[in-house]
């Protein structure tokens, strides 16, 4: 198993740092999947009640000027690692005025992902910061749990409003209840609703737009104004929204009635998918 990669471009480095910061906000530990073309950050909430999972994907050639890897075997040319996401984001934080950044898999006193940063300094002297991030290599028998989740056929697919707005709405709603009803239809309408015995608060979004559905037959015999609803835990959705520091190029919400919400967000060349299982509708 071998892995080494290098970033020299400041913009790529910033972008990579942003991704790692976002990952650190979402979960304490993450799985890093390294394959010849792609890097994936996989967040898997292992709660018995059914946790949200997030799949973040970046094309390596958009970030790295050099990228070499050798997986477990020729057929399985991929590496799965588990690491503390905060460590990676902290390590990258020190790379703000870096000349180069190298990431490699090492085994110093324990298996680590070594991030080595050559800093620019005023005096033109060389300064090097090295962070050894402890990792766990994930054995092959556990890989099956870490496959890219298949995207279910959505009942309604709708573009999300500005994420910052949605986040502030949800933050207020969280004070009322943890259970959020997401309702959407094919007319570009999205409702976010919380309910208690005393009060029911709904925020309505209009004219959001729907992407063309893949399966036309399903939508044909359905009234476009008909709302499809799903009940989710607001605490699973909020961190995902809070993690988005910039508004993405594309943000899509796929609702599978009564089963799950699939959020699909694209930031330039980083794709982020979040799967939040539904709670039973009361």
């Amino acid at each position: 198993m071998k892995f080494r990669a290098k970033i020299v471009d400041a913009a790529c480095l910033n972008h990579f740092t942003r991704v790692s910061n976002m990952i650190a906000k979402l979960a304490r530990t993450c799985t890093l999947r390294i394959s010849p073309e792609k890097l994936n950050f996989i967040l898997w909430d292992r709660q018995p009640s059914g946790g949200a999972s997030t799949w973040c994907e970046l094309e390596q050639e958009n970030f790295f000027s050099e990228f070499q890897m050798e997986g477990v075997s020729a057929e399985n040319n991929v590496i799965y690692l588990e690491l503390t996401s905060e460590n990676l984001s902290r390590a990258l934080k020190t790379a703000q005025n870096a000349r180069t950044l190298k990431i490699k898999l090492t085994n110093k006193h324990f298996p680590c992902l070594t991030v080595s940063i050559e800093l620019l300094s005023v005096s033109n002297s060389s300064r090097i910061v090295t962070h050894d991030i402890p990792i766990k290599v994930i054995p092959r028998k556990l890989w099956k749990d870490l496959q890219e989740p298949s995207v279910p056929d959505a009942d309604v697919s709708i573009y999300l409003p500005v994420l910052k707005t949605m986040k502030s709405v949800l933050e207020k709603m969280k004070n009322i209840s943890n259970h959020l009803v997401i309702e959407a239809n094919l007319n570009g309408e999205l409702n976010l609703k919380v309910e208690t015995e005393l009060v029911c608060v709904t925020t309505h979004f209009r004219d959001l737009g729907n992407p063309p559905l893949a399966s036309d037959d399903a939508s044909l015999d359905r009234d476009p104004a008909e709302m499809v609803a799903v009940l989710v835990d607001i605490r699973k959705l909020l961190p995902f929204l809070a993690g988005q520091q910039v508004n993405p190029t594309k943000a899509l919400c796929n609702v599978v009635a009564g089963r799950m919400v699939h959020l699909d967000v694209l930031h330039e060349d980083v794709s982020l998918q979040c799967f939040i299982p539904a709670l039973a509708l009361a």
Partner: protein
Amino acid sequence: MKCVVTGSNVKVLGKAVHSLSRIGDELYLEPLDDGLSLRTVNSSRSAYACFLFAPLFFQQYQPSTPGQDLLRCKILMKSFLSIFRSLAMLEKTVEKCCISLNDRSSCLVVQLHCKYGVRKTHNLSFQDCESLQAVFNLASCPHVLRAPARILGEAVLPFPPALAEVTLGIGRGRRVILRSYQEEEAESTSKAMVTEMSIGEEDFQQLQAPEGMGITFCLKEFRGLLSFAESANLPVSIHFDAPGRPAIFSIEDSLLDGHFVLATLLELDPPTQDLSSSKHHQPMPQLQSHSTPYQDNFANDDIDSYMIAMETTVGSEGSRALPSVSLMPGPHSEEEDNEAEPSPVPGTPPPKKFRSLFFGSILAPTHSPQGPSPVLAEDSDGEG
């Protein structure tokens, strides 16, 4: 005692208090003929810090009223710090700060003269105390590192705030290495990230230490000194000896000097994370003169030994004159401490993680020679 600080020096004084407050809970304020000294020591006696502000630092400096002895006092750091808490406020509004201490009043009076004629008076109750003085001698430290505070400040920046200790050493190619120190116990399960900063020799004004030399000390106190030194834009000198002996961090200019004496870690096991194979290992030289039970405790325990020799002086003699006692007391005659319990006290916890300074008092002539060895260390496994 009466002194008056004006203008930007008020902020300098405030900054010094801030950095002292990272170390101890009590502040020892001692007016001397060569300036006002502020000192503190931490609760486990593993770190000592002192600032000396020269008479020129003040607009007016009067160490004692004529015909009176020099007074000294000990106050709560918290209450003194609260006066200087907001440095921005000090800079913007305070024009003058008067500190006075006299026999008749039972308070240390700190007056801040602010803009628009506002005057804030703080009366701090104090305790009489002995003079606090760590025994250290720059000349006895063979190794010296000196660099602008900014360089060192940038060097510690990548380390997480929660990190307790760093190892500073000289690596291959005479590069100065700072590395996060990990305790050995943290085996297999929860490994923390190890960060290492490597700086070229050219960034240092002085680098006088062999390759492979390294010391481990607490980062928090070091950060405290650095933040002061950075604001004053002064170079920091680090004088050190073998691991286990105290390291002295000092800054100096014409108006003030500061010394931070920090205990360094003595590793018993051959260090796994040494800087190079030639690491020079010190076999606890200071223990030889101790009584047997004490030594046994030491030898059998995982000693993180951090030691600095300390002493307190009583009496009005100019206590700044450093006695020429070596850092680690050899023959244990003068270091007797009237406060410390005699050595084999039943129920004394074994000095498991020994991070203590030597505290002794030189009541010089009146002292009983060579009593039982005092318990010099209190157990202080603060980090758990």
